[in-house]
């Protein structure tokens, strides 16, 4: 306990992100995501947090993860780093009444919640857990990530020759990063113990949130192939690389180190390599992996991603910037986001002498006067001991009401790390450059129809060549030429906002035109904390926001209650210290009105840019066409007049062309003016609406 506290304290002092940080790893209890989503923690239960409870926590924790029990079960308090988890009485009671469940049993029962429902999805989840960890680690350490993702089909020989596995089979997934590495002592627990991580107990924007992550993938591999996970890691130049093979003791949920060797000639100065042998289905699962990899490259323009697949050329997404994203900061919870149960837990844990001190230290934006106001509004005495609050539900409820009745400054929002509009743009450009040329899968059979959005850009290459466009125009403003196609790219990063005391920030980007099909529903790319969301598009709050936006204002067609139709990919990203998902699978954003509204505002802003562009472009196309018609006619007229008068044909042509330029330019200027006026009118209208809503 003391060691943990010390470690926590150390972290508070802002240790430069290094491997030592791993010391702060702590055991966590499983959280119920809906509960987390609903605020910080549900508080349905009377809580008596005691050391005894903590000691017995392990068994209870496993039981608690049963989904059926979820609603009734207490959940961890908000993730302030300086607090340690306690078990709650109800959990304790339940633990007494239950036999110990093996972790493998738990895993098997909950595999759908964890993303291992079937061999295709398991492949994606395994890769995703490893890659998310690599990116998080690099970012925390301030390293520009270079990540290699490899999928090996074990049916092929060492040189990659042979028949690809059709359907289920054995595969090896390898993810290697140049991150800070993991200290030797921590490796077994991270990879050989479920529910063990560093990101759970804090309020900070990160990819991993639940500490289920990578060890679940290891578990899956072990259950399906019997093979241990292999981890190689090195923390720095002077230190040796260590290679481990770790098995999970599924009865005790503890790691068993199968082998541990120093590895002399590891080329990386620092970094981690994870290898898992799993049962997977590459043929149907690859499209999701491809999409995940592409989209990860898109939302992480600072990362270089190499992607190696069986029997295919290596694919590399080079980084689009050398700038690391702004560091995401850890924050204390905001009082308006705390729910009753969590408040009680926090109070029980508090080391402050009185409520006033508790409020000031446990929460952000609570100064002495604010704390005073809260107490006044709750009718609670300043001198009250926090512990009493933690034990008296009625008292706590009074305080909770008082908090909600008090005006408190919104939490600081500088803790977030958005992609940023400029980098989003660059991300889109390099994303389009790669997927365009080397479309991912060649022989997709389209069997796995989990997500209708899984269309493949590669197909577009095969379509009939379009009729030659009128004379080449230089790209319009905001237009990018990528692999012979022109895309209009617009991006918007909204200012940070708050829902339930949690800061969040929305970004929207779009790539219009190019080789996207004009008669299909747009592609919607969803991201939460830079992680692509690939499933449950229909259930996602982002989809709702885009569907609710009237894209006809922005010159796209849109069937009622649907996504718009047009040659466009739309990227939506939410960054938050706590992203509310609809379920543990973290596949769809919950429908919070504040968040939906922000997404809509960002989409509208992007839409306005798009409308201006489309209108300009249409005009420009028209002008070009028109000019070319004139040029053709000039040829004819000059010929006729030359024959009639005997004057030089070229001289006549030259004179005509000179007038042509002048005339069309004057026309253009006049039309531009008209256009700008029209677009301003259109822009003004929705904007007014937006402001009202804001």
């Amino acid at each position, binding site marked *: 306990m003391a060691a943990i506290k010390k470690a926590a304290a150390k972290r508070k002092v802002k240790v430069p992100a290094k491997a030592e940080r791993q010391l702060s790893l702590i055991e966590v209890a499983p959280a119920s995501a809906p509960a987390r989503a609903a605020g910080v923690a549900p508080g349905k239960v009377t809580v008596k947090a005691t050391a005894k409870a903590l000691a017995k926590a392990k068994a209870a924790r496993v039981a608690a993860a049963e989904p059926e029990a979820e609603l009734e079960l207490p959940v961890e308090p908000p993730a302030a780093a300086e607090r340690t988890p306690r078990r709650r009485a109800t959990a304790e009671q339940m633990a007494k009444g239950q036999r110990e469940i093996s972790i493998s049993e738990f895993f098997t029962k909950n595999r759908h919640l964890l993303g291992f429902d079937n061999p295709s999805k398991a492949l994606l989840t395994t890769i995703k857990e490893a890659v998310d960890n690599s990116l998080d680690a690099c970012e925390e350490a301030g390293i520009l990530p270079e990540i290699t993702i490899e999928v090996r089909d074990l049916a092929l020989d060492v040189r990659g020759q042979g028949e690809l596995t059709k359907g289920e089979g054995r595969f090896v997934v390898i993810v290697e990063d140049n991150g800070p590495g993991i200290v030797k002592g921590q490796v077994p627990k991270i990879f050989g113990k479920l529910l063990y991580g560093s990101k759970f107990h804090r309020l900070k924007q990160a990819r991993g949130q639940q500490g289920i992550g990578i060890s679940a993938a290891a578990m899956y591999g072990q259950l399906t192939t019997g093979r241990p996970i292999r981890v190689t890691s090195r923390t720095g130049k002077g230190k040796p690389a260590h290679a481990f093979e770790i098995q999970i003791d599924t009865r005790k949920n503890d790691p068993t180190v199968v082998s541990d060797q120093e590895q002399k000639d590891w080329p990386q100065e620092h970094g981690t390599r994870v290898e898992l042998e799993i049962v997977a289905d590459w043929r149907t699962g690859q499209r999701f992996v491809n999409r995940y990899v592409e989209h990860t490259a898109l939302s992480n323009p600072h990362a270089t991603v190499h992607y190696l697949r069986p029997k295919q050329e290596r694919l590399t997404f080079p980084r689009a910037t050398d700038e690391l994203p702004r560091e995401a900061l850890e924050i204390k919870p905001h009082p308006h986001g705390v729910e009753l149960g969590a408040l009680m837990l926090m109070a029980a844990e508090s080391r402050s002498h009185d409520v006033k001190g508790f409020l000031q230290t446990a929460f952000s934006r609570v100064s002495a006067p604010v704390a005073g106001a809260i107490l006044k509004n709750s009718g609670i005495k300043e001198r009250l001991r926090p512990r009493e609050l933690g034990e008296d539900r009625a008292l706590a409820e009074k305080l909770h009401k008082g908090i909600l009745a008090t005006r408190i400054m919104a939490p600081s929002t500088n803790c977030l790390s958005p992609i940023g509009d400029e980098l989003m743009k660059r991300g889109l450009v390099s994303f389009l450059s790669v997927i365009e040329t080397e479309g991912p899968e060649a022989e997709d059979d389209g069997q796995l129809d989990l997500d209708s959005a899984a269309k493949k850009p590669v197909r577009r290459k095969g379509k009939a060549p379009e009729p030659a466009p009128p004379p080449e125009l230089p790209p319009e403003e905001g237009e990018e030429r990528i692999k012979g196609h022109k895309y209009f790219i617009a991006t918007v990063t909204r200012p940070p906002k708050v829902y339930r005391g949690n800061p969040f920030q929305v970004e929207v980007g779009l790539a219009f035109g190019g080789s996207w099909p004009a008669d299909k529903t747009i592609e919607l790319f969803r991201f939460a904390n830079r992680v692509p969301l690939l499933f449950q598009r229909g259930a996602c709050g982002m989809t709702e926001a885009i569907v609710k936006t009237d894209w006809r204002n922005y010159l796209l067609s849109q069937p009622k209650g649907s996504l718009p139709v047009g040659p466009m990919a739309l990227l939506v990203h939410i960054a938050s210290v706590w992203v509310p998902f609809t379920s543990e699978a973290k596949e769809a954003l919950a429908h919070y009105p504040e968040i939906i509204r922000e997404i809509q505002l960002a989409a509208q802003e992007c839409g306005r840019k798009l409308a201006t562009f489309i209108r300009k472009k249409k005009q420009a196309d028209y002008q070009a066409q028109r000019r070319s018609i*004139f040029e053709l*006619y000039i*040829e*004819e007229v000059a010929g006729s007049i030359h024959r*009639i008068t005997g004057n030089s044909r070229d001289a006549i042509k030259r*004179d005509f062309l000179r*007038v*042509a330029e*002048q*005339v069309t330019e004057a026309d253009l200027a006049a039309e531009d003016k008209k256009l700008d006026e029209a677009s301003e009118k259109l822009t003004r209208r929705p904007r007014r609406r937006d402001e009202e809503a804001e």
Partner: protein
Amino acid sequence: MRLDAVSKKTVGKIERLAESVIKSVKGRKNPFVEIPIRSLANVHFDKKKGVVQLGSQTQKRYFFNVAMAKKFMQTFLVSDACKELVESGKTTSIRDLYYITKHTIGDTRQNTFEEQDESDPIIEDLEVSLDALREELHLFASRKGSMVGPVTIRDSGDTIDLRRMGSGGWAVPSIVEENVVQLGKHEARYILLIEKDAVWSRFNEDKFWKREKCIIIQGGGQPPRGVRRMVQRLHAELRLPVYVLVDNDPWGFYIYSVMKQGSINLAYESMRMAVPSARFVGLSSFDKDKYELPMNVAIKMDDGDVARARQMLAYPWFADKRWQREIQEMVRSGVKFELEALSRRGISFITEEYLPKKLREKDWLE
């Protein structure tokens, strides 16, 4: 090749049109062709002369205008072709001209002209803007129309006796100007213009022209320019009155009115083609009673006919009371009659009784 005076003048007009364009573009101006407007709004009825005349409104056809550019180009393709025709002393049909000027533009799939319907109006535009006749541009329209009668003419140097033309008659050429056709000896008392070929054949077979000493001529419906010009010359040079025999329907009235005072479309040629003193001898809306035509030979007017008739009531050249009655009677009764309806009274009723009686009783409209 040496050009005659008329041809020289025509070539000069075409050249000046082209030069005006060169001057415009040199001066960095949008070049245009000025074309008198050929629509009802820009024609007026000259009461004194009794003809429809073109007003002074013109329209500028600019090159640098998306809607006009193609027509501008076509105007010069036609000009170029006409100049070549005139200079080489050849004459061709307007259909031929369409083929001469039609070609694909650049490497597109667009043609200079898609259909003859596109090139015909361009020719008319050019005629009015150059103030040159179609004949002066060495163009002729499709030929139709035949003529017989007690008259001798010379056509392109050949002497032709129109008393000996058999059943078909002399085919009236498109160009009947003095340099092509000259009029000779005759014994005719008047000219009868008949709308239809079939009815004309009855008159020819019955030797009506011999008996009545008249020239009979038909234009196969709306008479082409050659026929109209021929009637006008016969009228003017031989000082013969002109009678017009047409169906009793709005179209028939229209043919008469075109013969009498010119068409809207060719108003610029009215002076050369119109015979303001031409008389309408039938079929009148009142003939059905006068000549006891049974109702079963009547044809019901359709909506288009009625609308057309109503429109005619407003034409200044039908303002006369008797004409108003004539047209109103047609609208009122709602029926129309073809000339052939008279055959109900006997196959030669029209040549032996109807027309002689009409002329005798001076039962006509002017």
